[in-house]
């Protein structure tokens, strides 16, 4: 009896596998299809972003397919899960390239994954297009560009400098405390350029506090910041950490301005859901909600999913646009031609701005950021901001 039940179990499993294999797009994909991989965190700690990027990229692919595809070939996107883990991401990337025959791969907005995958993508010679903002994901420690890695949003160096410039040069805040997640490459990589720029224009870092990935109480760190004499707090962290920070800062009566990164964008204020706790916050976003190029994507997203898109949806959309532009500029949908084409992407109108990729750094050039102010839970657009130093460089 036991033997039979084991056999039945194996039979059922094999049956399920066979059924699933029937849906597998990898084996024998029609010639008129371009396989583009999508590597996102679908089940790990940043799965909300992974899903958002995936949906944005899908919307872009659907639109292009509806318009006839690329030279008659339809885009087929295959999504695999990184589980928020570098090792899983490497396995998934290899599978996308070796088995699914993806000609380019869209990457996650996670710097740790970008840095970890850079040598793998280079070895496979398949483009990996992501929003891993840590510059080490695109330019190695030796100063040489990673041939297969491409970034579609400002790097953390550009980003950190924009925020430091705004805090010190625009708002006149000279004594700065920093609160950051030490386990997050994005937060850590924003710190150095922020500090360097702020100190170069006369500001002083009066306190530096950190927290860990699993910590949920920052009141000790916030109390230290409160008594440090700081004028403002720089908090370049992920949204879960920022929500906790806002609630606990209010509890401690910390009313000084906070300056932060992308994650202060919506839905941050609605998640905290307390106008007093979401006040006096400045942050830089990739786009302004009022910019016309967002309307079409927002409308399509709302129609399909019945909710408002978060900023990672737009980044996902732009990543697909950039890959397709790479195919067009390179003159073919093969990995080498796409890499060649991505080096030529210039003046591409994306949802987050006009994208030109530097062949020297594989990072976008000239992408400015839009500064926002959160006033008692209400987002106020302060316009695009470029530091004086960046203007001189342009």
């Amino acid at each position, binding site marked *: 009896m036991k033997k039979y039940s084991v056999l039945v179990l194996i039979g059922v499993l094999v049956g399920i596998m066979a059924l699933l294999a029937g849906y597998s797009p990898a084996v024998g994909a029609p010639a008129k299809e371009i396989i583009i991989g999508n590597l996102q965190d*679908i*089940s*790990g*700690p940043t*799965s*909300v972003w*992974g*899903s*958002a990027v995936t*949906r944005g990229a899908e919307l872009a692919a659907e639109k292009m397919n509806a318009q006839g595809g690329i030279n008659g070939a339809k885009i087929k996107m295959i999504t695999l899960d990184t589980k928020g883990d570098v090792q899983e991401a490497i396995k998934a990337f290899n599978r996308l390239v070796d088995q699914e025959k993806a000609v380019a791969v869209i990457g996650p907005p996670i710097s740790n994954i970008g840095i970890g995958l850079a040598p793998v993508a280079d070895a496979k010679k398949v483009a990996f297009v992501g929003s891993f903002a840590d510059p080490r994901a695109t330019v190695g420690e030796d100063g040489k560009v990673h041939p297969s890695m491409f970034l579609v949003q400002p790097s953390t160096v550009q980003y950190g400098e924009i925020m430091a410039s705004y805090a010190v040069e625009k708002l006149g805040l000279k004594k700065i405390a920093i609160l950051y997640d*030490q386990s997050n490459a994005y937060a850590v990589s924003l710190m150095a350029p922020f500090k360097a720029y702020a100190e170069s224009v006369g500001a002083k870092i009066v306190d530096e*506090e*950190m*927290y*860990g990935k*699993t*910590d*949920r*109480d920052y*009141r*000790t*760190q916030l*109390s*230290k910041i409160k008594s440090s004499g700081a004028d403002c707090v720089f908090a370049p962290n992920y*949204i*879960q950490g920022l*929500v*906790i920070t806002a*609630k*606990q800062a*209010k*509890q*401690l*009566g910390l009313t000084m301005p906070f300056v932060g990164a992308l994650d202060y964008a919506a*839905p941050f204020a*609605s*998640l*905290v*859901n*307390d106008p007093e*706790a979401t006040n006096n916050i400045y942050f830089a976003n990739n786009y302004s909600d009022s910019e016309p190029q967002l309307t079409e994507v927002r409308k399509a997203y709302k129609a399909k*999913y019945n*909710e408002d898109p*978060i900023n990672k949806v737009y980044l996902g959309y732009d990543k697909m646009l950039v890959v397709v532009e790479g195919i067009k500029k390179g003159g073919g949908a093969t990995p080498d031609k796409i890499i060649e084409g991505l080096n030529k992407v210039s003046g591409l109108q994306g949802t987050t701005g006009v994208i030109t990729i530097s062949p020297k750094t594989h990072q976008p050039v000239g992408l400015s950021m839009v500064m926002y102010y959160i006033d008692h839970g209400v987002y106020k657009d302060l316009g695009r901001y470029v530091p004086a130093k960046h203007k001189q460089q342009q």
Partner: protein
Amino acid sequence: MTPQLLINGISLGSVYALIAVGFALIFNILKFSNFSHGGLMSVTAYIGYVACVFLGHYIKDLPLFVVTLVAAALGGGLLALVVERVAFRRLRNSNSSVIYYFISSITMGILMENSITIFASSNFYSYPSFFPASVIRFGALSVAIPDLLTFLFSAAALVILLVVLFRTKIGLAIRSTSFDTSTAKLMGMDPNRVVAATFFASGVLGGVAGVFLGINYTLYPQLGQLIVKGFVASVIGGLGSISGALIGAVLLGVVEIFLIGLVGAGWSPVVIFVIMLVFLLLRPRGISGVIVQEKA
């Protein structure tokens, strides 16, 4: 600063306590560490949120908070019954080794967490503000209302549990089954019903914990991974001891807060796990002193 740190520590500890008590309850009866409790907390946090969104059209503030809690608690209780039936009953009936319980609990936890990821991971969600003023101030000291409520609910949950365990028939049945399942069966008790009742109670606590975690930290599928803190608290307090879990949790919260102040957030978890290791090596029965061995 120190009294405020103490308040902060107790409030963090009360979050851990809600997790640890539900965790300890299952260990107390079945003698295994039920890590599926984390996944259950994630699911119930979303159950509470869905109830809150639907009922938010009709009621507000405190009534909405109470109804949300009840919905999550009932959802948690029912879900725990399903978990017990699917993941553990066959193992119990076949007197399986404890390692299978452990694997089964981890599997169920991942299954529940990933189910939530599939259905609710396209955006972040949060509960509405149930209370107009979210902080109470006493001079220079301040206490957040959700923290205060978590503390009160943890204490109330313990009292209710102890009353049920020591003053009711089902409590007697649970304790008897915990002591010796075979003899309890010979005495006419139905172990399946007793275990199901225990899981239901644990699920109710998981539901309440899920709502408080959601209120404090927003909703995301991995919310239940705080189960690790509940486990550490249970080890310090004494695995299987309900009052020990509460003491261990509050102690863990206070120590964690003071350690961040003393050695910084980087070193704090290192010291916490060294403390846990010391307890496991020198006093495996924890603070409460209850000697419970893993089910074999």
